[in-house]
C-alpha cells in the first residue's frame, strides 16, 4: 500500500484517476433519487398526495447525503484512504441541493409563496424552525465551498465548515419532531448513524 500521508493531500495518480473517472458515477447516483421522483411525478407512481411525497423524499435524501458527506472523514481516518476526501465537496453540495429542493417544495408547492403562513410556521412550529436553522447552517458552507474561498479563509474554513455537524443535528431533530405516533425508528436510525460518525471524530480529536 502506498504511503499517502506524505502526499500532502495529493493522492497518487491511480487514486486521482479513479476519482475523476468515478465522478460521473457519483453524479448519476446522487441524481438518481431526483430522477426517480420526477419520473413518478410525470408517469404516475406517487401517492394521491404527491406534494407530501416530494417533501418527504427530498428531505430524506438531503439528510442521507449529508450523513454520507459526513462519513467521508471517518472513512478516511479508519481506512487511511486519503483520496476519498476529494468526494466530500461534491457529496456535501448534493446534500445541499436536496435541502434546497426540500425547502422549495415547502415554499412553492406546499405553501405557494404564502409568506404570512410561512413566517408563522417558522416562528411557531419548532420542527420548521429547526429545519430552517439547518438550512441557514448549510448556506454559507455551500457558498464557501469553492477553491477560491477555501484559499481565502485558510484555517477558518475548517472551523466554519464544522457547521455541517450542527446542520445534521438540525436535520435529525427536524425529522424527530414531525413524526406522528411513537414510531421513532426513522429519526433514531439517522440519529444513531450521526452519533457513530461524530464518535469517530471525537476519538481522533482526543488522541
Amino acid at each position, binding site marked *: 500500500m502506498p504511503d499517502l500521508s506524505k502526499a500532502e493531500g495529493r493522492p497518487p495518480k491511480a487514486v486521482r484517476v479513479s476519482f475523476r473517472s468515478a465522478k460521473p458515477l457519483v453524479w448519476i447516483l446522487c441524481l438518481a433519487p431526483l430522477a426517480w421522483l*420526477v419520473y413518478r*411525478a*410525470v408517469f*404516475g407512481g*406517487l*401517492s*394521491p*398526495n*404527491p*406534494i*407530501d411525497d*416530494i417533501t418527504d423524499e427530498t428531505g430524506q435524501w438531503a439528510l442521507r447525503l449529508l450523513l454520507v458527506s459526513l462519513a467521508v472523514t471517518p472513512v478516511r481516518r479508519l481506512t487511511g484512504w486519503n483520496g476519498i476526501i476529494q468526494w466530500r465537496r461534491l457529496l456535501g453540495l448534493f446534500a445541499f441541493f436536496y435541502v434546497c429542493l426540500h425547502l422549495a417544495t415547502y415554499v412553492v*408547492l406546499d*405553501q*405557494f409563496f404564502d409568506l404570512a*403562513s410561512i413566517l*408563522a*410556521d417558522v416562528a*411557531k*412550529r*419548532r*420542527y420548521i424552525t429547526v429545519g430552517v436553522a439547518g438550512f441557514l447552517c448549510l448556506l454559507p458552507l455551500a457558498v464557501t465551498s469553492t477553491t477560491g474561498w477555501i484559499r481565502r479563509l485558510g484555517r477558518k474554513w475548517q472551523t466554519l465548515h464544522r457547521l455541517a455537524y450542527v446542520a445534521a443535528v438540525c436535520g435529525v431533530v427536524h425529522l424527530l*419532531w*414531525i413524526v*406522528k*405516533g*411513537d*414510531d421513532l*425508528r426513522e429519526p433514531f436510525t439517522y440519529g444513531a448513524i450521526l452519533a457513530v460518525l461524530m464518535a469517530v471524530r471525537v476519538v481522533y480529536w482526543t488522541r
Partner: protein
Amino acid sequence: MLIRTSSPIPTRDITDERLYLDRRRFLASVGLATGGLAGALLTPESASAQTPLANVKKSPLSTTGETLNSLDDITSYNNFYEFGTDKSDPKANSGRFKPLPWTVKIDGEVGKPGDYALDDLLKWFPLEERVYRLRCVEAWSMVIPWNGFPLADLLKRVEPTAKARFVEFTTVQRPSEMPGLRSPVLQWPYKEGLRLDEAQHPLTLMAVGLYGKTLPNQNGAPLRLVVPWKYGFKSIKSIVRIRLTSGQPQTAWNVSAPNEYGFYSNVNPQVDHPRWSQARERRIGEFFRRETLMFNGYADQVAGLYKGLDLKKNY
C-alpha cells in the same frame, strides 16, 4: 417541475355517475338483495374485487356541492397503522386480512348485550349512501361516498341503559394478518370513543362500503365508524367491539399524545395542532390549500352538541 396533483383527477379514475347508478339499479333488479355481503367472503383481496352492495338509498344527509375523490385516491392513501405507518402501507399490507365472517361484541351499559353478526346488522338496517368530507388531522381531506347505516339505529336496538353516557369502540387485533401491530406505534388494540349524544347524532354512520361496494381492507373492512365533523382518526376502522360506558373511555391517540389529540378532536380551524396549523387543508387532487371549515362544514348540524363547551380546552 411537473406535479401530478396540479392537474385534476384523471377522468379514468372517476366512475361515471350514470354507470354507477345503472350498476346499482341492475344489481337491485337481479335481486342481490339482503345480506349481500356474503359474496365478499370469496375475494377480499383488492379494491376492484369488492362486492357490490344492493339497495343502497341516497341519503338527504349527504354533503352536496363537492367533487368526489376517486376510488383510487380513497383506497390507496390511508392511515391504518395496524398495516404500517406509510399512507401506501394499508393497501400494500392488508391483503391477508380476512374481514368475513365478522361479529361485533356489543356490551357495557346496554339492555341487549351480545355478539352480533354483521350479516344480521345488514338485515336489520337499510343501507344509505352518505357523501361526507373526511378531514385528516394531518391537514389533508377527501370527499367519500360511504355506504352504511346510522349508528343511532344500532344503539337503539341494543337499548342503552340510563347509565350509558359514552361509547367505546375497539379495532380488531390480529398480528398474523396485520403486520403493523408488531411496532409499538400506538397502544394496541386501537380504541376510540364518542359521547353518547355524538354517537346518536344522525350524521354518525356505521359504514360497510364505499362507492356502492363493500369496504376494502385498507378502508376498515368490514365495518367502521364515520364521524364527518371530527378528525379522521376518530372514525375507527374494523370494529370488533362497541362498549357503552358511564365514564369517558380512553382513546388510542389521546393515550399516545394527550397534548396533541383530545377526546373530542372536532375539526376546528381555530385550534391548531401543537406542531402544525389546522387553518387550512389540502383536498386530495387539488394543488392549492383550502380553508378548513368549522366542524368540517357540518357546524349547522352539530354545533349544538357543544354549546357551552370551551373548544380550545376540549380539543
